[in-house]
């Protein structure tokens, strides 16, 4: 239906005058082939000159060998249920009031726990139980699990206090003595197991030969300080606009600049619900961008800013000089 039949007023931000001016020859296939070749040359040049980064992944073995104190301090929080993962909430566990929310809007809570993780069992007790021919370790685990929860809490608290003053002596974890019962043997054994590389395989395998889900080892590693310290040195922290950075001096996901920016400004930079707040902002902005042609005021910005006169400057220049303009139609 034509616009006039529909009785709609011409809107310059929505409608156009049909072009009745000149056309000129344009070889679109040739343009595509030239662009394809030019881009191939550009990409090959960039790859040859700059290559690409590939910093090796952090393993539990490497972490526990390089910084056994940080490993042990993290491991005790997994055992006593105070680590970041243990208190995360959905989708890992049911920790109360842990899910991010904006008022009553709490989407993580709607879907609940989908990757259940019990850090004490999954990260500490379970892997040690799977060690064969280790009666001393199994006895320590038996004693720990047979104790009351208050006794476990006392041991855990005592170990946390002691491990805060632990030392790394040539890669060996040395924890001051204290009334921490079997917990010293448990965390010490877990540290030794990690240093041999056994914990990496145990956390990943989950009893299967093939596995491609790294959720548990990654969560364990991320609960410690070691990974974060490496990221800090590579300017990858959130406060360093890390989301759009890459290891080394390579360009990263620069297109995430707006997403990253919201984490730097109040109130998101201090909010415990920052991730949800930033996502809501970005979803609103993304929808606005998608449906921009339908949104009054926003769709008028191009006409108001007149940047188009720069893009079509030859066209407007030709209009201003009628004698030089091309003949209409072709």
């Amino acid at each position, binding site marked *: 239906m*034509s616009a006039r039949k*529909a009785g709609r007023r*011409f809107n*310059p931000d*929505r409608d*156009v*005058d*049909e072009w*009745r*001016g*000149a*056309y*000129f020859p*344009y*070889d*679109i296939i040739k343009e*595509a082939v030239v662009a394809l070749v030019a*881009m191939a040359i550009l*990409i090959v040049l*960039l790859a040859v000159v700059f290559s*690409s*980064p*590939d*910093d090796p*992944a952090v393993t539990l073995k490497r972490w526990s060998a390089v910084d056994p104190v940080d490993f042990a301090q993290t491991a005790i929080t997994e055992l006593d249920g105070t680590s970041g993962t243990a208190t995360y909430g*959905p*989708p890992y566990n049911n920790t109360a009031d842990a899910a991010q929310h904006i008022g009553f809007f709490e*989407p*993580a809570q709607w*879907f609940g726990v*989908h990757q259940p993780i019990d850090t004490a069992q999954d990260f500490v007790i379970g892997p040690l139980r799977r060690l064969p021919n280790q009666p001393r370790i199994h006895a320590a685990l038996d004693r720990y699990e047979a104790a009351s929860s208050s006794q476990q809490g006392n041991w855990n608290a005592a170990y946390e206090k002691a491990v805060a003053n632990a030392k790394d002596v040539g890669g060996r974890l040395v924890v001051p003595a204290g009334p921490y019962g079997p917990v010293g043997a448990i965390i010490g054994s877990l540290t030794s197991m990690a240093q041999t590389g056994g914990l990496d395989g145990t956390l990943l395998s989950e009893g299967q030969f093939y596995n*491609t*889900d*790294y*959720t548990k080892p990654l969560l364990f*590693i991320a609960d410690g300080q070691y*990974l974060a310290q490496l990221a800090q040195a590579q300017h*990858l922290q*959130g406060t360093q606009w*890390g*989301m759009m950075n890459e*290891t080394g001096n390579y360009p990263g*996901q*620069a*297109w995430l600049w707006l997403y990253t920016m919201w984490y730097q400004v109040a109130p998101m930079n201090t909010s415990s619900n920052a*991730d949800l707040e930033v996502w809501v902002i970005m979803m609103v902005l993304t929808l606005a961008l*998608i449906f*921009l*042609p*339908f949104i009054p005021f926003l769709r008028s*910005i*191009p*006409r108001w800013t007149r*940047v*188009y006169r720069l*893009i*079509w*400057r*030859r*066209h407007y220049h030709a209009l201003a000089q009628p004698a030089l303009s091309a003949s209409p139609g072709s």
Partner: protein
Amino acid sequence: MTTTDTTTGTGVPGEEDAHQWTARVRHSAESAFPPDQLLPDRQPAYLTSWVYVFGILTVTTLAWVIVTGCILALMGPNWWHVSTTGHFVNSLHLWSVEAFFFFLVIHLWAKFFMAAWRGKRRLTWVTGVVSFVVSIAAAFTGYLTQQNFDSQWISTQAKDGINATGAGAFWNVLNFGQMLMWHIVLLPIAVAIIAALHVLLVRRRGIVPPFADSHEQGTAPSPTADVRDAPA
């Protein structure tokens, strides 16, 4: 064996074939994309700015992203960590992605300042922006599946944002296998389909004309030559 031509000779199904889905689809396709519109050899005189180049540069860099990604897929996800050749192909993949987004963003800004949605081109704009958003997801899953320190850090940080939305219950950025499938199958298919639709719409609707001088102040032009969108 004899054959009977039941078309009208113009691609329009004859009466005998009017019920055929195949004939009707062919007719619709031929009506929507006549060859001289699908592959035009003439363009309007206002198409003179260098900024138009960024559209084709975006498409061609996307082609190189797909080609280099396919080579990496041929050899498997570990290849580029242990092979010099593999590392070079990974570098080609990385830089084609960086170039793709660089050109795409310039193309997007240029189209914004041209108000390129005018004249029944709103769906062209929508598909362009959606392909940009899906491309971001595709690139993001690529960063997650590098199998190195970078992917460890990105995944353990990104999980908080994804989990906060509730999507983390089903879309686990720490699950390498799941993310790899999204990166090499689902998202590339989505990007390719949406980008192809975008290009077809560009061909169908043509390049948006400049604002007429009389429109700059919002006044009506000649009433005989305008193309208006259906009511929003």
